[in-house]
């Protein structure tokens, strides 16, 4: 099998991740933060270690790392935690439904800026949409559909100047690109554990800036309420992060796996992994662009790990299905990003997405291209 759906979830994981998840489950899977006994404290140590690793990776504080089920829950936690009735929100047209839907659900007015432009043009577009009621800008760092990446530092600086919250969806970039929350002025960074950080499915998180540290966390509405292992006689959730936004038992095995995933990519070097993926992307793009029945979207972007294409006269689902029969995993359709597909001109039909990971090889790219050529020939 050739797995090229790493934007959905990376596969496989490093062997050390599998081993750590299994070790956690058999050796130290107490309930973290709940009891004072050795097993609970061992789990708590691992959870805290993961908070420390994440805070080092993204230049934040461990107390501001909130674990959630996934990036979608992280984005809901941040967006609905910060938004107030009557606010105005700005998002990009590359957003996943995990941004678009919660923004709509807040009932706030929102505007959309075009992310398929130069950094300067993006800033102009955002500036033209600001209103006195603009509470936050929410945008993806890197599209899950095509090789578009947004200028976080410039947008963060604009937010800082205007006193606006900056929420970033790092579903596709966490562990792939360096992200410095302080440098980029990010107030809430939402990440998955199971993609570029190479943990397993079951945990993600949102990291807040010091704007919400300590008692300032009271400003954040809670998305859910429940046990927190602390202040249990009080009716309200604790006033401080992360426990304020972490009701219920945390997924310790997934967090243990995430810890190991972060250690592994840090040892390997995230720049090295990204360069490897970009090399594979370019190799495939070159071959697909030379085929007269294949249209590659955004082919002029020099960087990227996500390649979007369609075969002329073949639906994206049919192409993906034929590839699957040949043992190749890709994803067809709209990738939960309707605004992005509309912008790229694939809003009616969708497209086929190929996304690379650390374990893909040049040989796999060549096999993919040969198989796709064969599929198209058989269709001629």
């Amino acid at each position, binding site marked *: 099998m050739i797995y090229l759906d790493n934007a959905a979830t990376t596969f496989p994981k490093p062997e050390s991740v599998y081993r750590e998840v299994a070790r956690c489950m058999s050796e130290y899977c107490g309930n*973290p*933060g709940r*009891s*004072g006994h050795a097993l609970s*404290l061992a789990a*708590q*140590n691992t959870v*805290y270690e993961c*908070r*420390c690793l994440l805070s080092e990776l993204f230049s934040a504080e*461990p*107390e501001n790392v909130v674990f959630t089920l996934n990036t979608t829950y992280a984005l809901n936690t941040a967006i609905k935690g910060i938004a107030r009735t009557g606010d105005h929100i700005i998002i990009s047209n590359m957003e996943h439904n995990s941004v678009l839907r919660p923004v709509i659900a807040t009932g706030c007015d929102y505007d959309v800026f075009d992310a398929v432009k130069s950094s300067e043009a993006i800033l102009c577009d955002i500036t033209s949409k600001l209103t006195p009621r603009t509470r936050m800008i929410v945008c993806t760092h890197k599209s899950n559909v095509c090789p578009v990446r947004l200028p976080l530092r410039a947008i963060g600086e604009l937010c800082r100047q205007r006193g606006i919250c900056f929420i970033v969806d790092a579903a596709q970039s966490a562990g792939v690109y360096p992200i410095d929350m302080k440098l980029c002025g990010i107030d809430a960074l939402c990440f998955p554990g199971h993609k570029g950080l190479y943990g397993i499915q079951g945990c993600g998180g949102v990291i807040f800036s010091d704007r919400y*540290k*300590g*008692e300032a966390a009271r400003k954040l509405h809670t998305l859910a309420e429940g046990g*927190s*292992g*602390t*202040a*249990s*006689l*009080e009716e309200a959730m*604790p*006033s*401080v*992060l*992360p*426990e304020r936004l972490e009701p219920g038992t945390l997924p310790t095995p997934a967090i243990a796996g995430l810890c190991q995933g972060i250690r592994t990519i840090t040892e390997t070097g995230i720049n090295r992994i990204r360069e490897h993926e970009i090399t594979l992307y370019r190799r495939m793009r070159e071959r697909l662009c030379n085929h007269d029945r294949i249209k590659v979207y955004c082919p002029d972007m020099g960087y990227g790990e996500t390649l979007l294409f369609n075969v002329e006269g073949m639906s994206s689902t049919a192409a993906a299905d034929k590839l699957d029969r040949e043992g190749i995993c890709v994803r067809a359709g709209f990738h939960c990003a309707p605004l992005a597909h509309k912008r790229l001109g694939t809003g009616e039909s969708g497209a086929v997405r190929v996304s690379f990971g650390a374990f893909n090889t040049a040989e796999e790219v060549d096999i993919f291209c040969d198989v796709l050529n064969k599929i198209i020939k058989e269709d001629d």
Partner: protein
Amino acid sequence: MANSNNRCIISLPSATYAMSAQKLLSAKGIASRVVKTDPSATKKGCSNGIEVDCRLSVRAKGILTNNSIPIS
């Protein structure tokens, strides 16, 4: 609050802050232990803290305060 072994408890707002406090104090050469504190000691119920040698308690609290770790 001191127990019979002359160990003092410093109450902290959460388990995470207790871990941060332990790490910080360790870096400053003060050994501590993360503990669940007596729920009847506060009106809030279950709470968290660290246990340190009472002779180092004042210094430990100073370090925590200077590093923005809130003491309950």
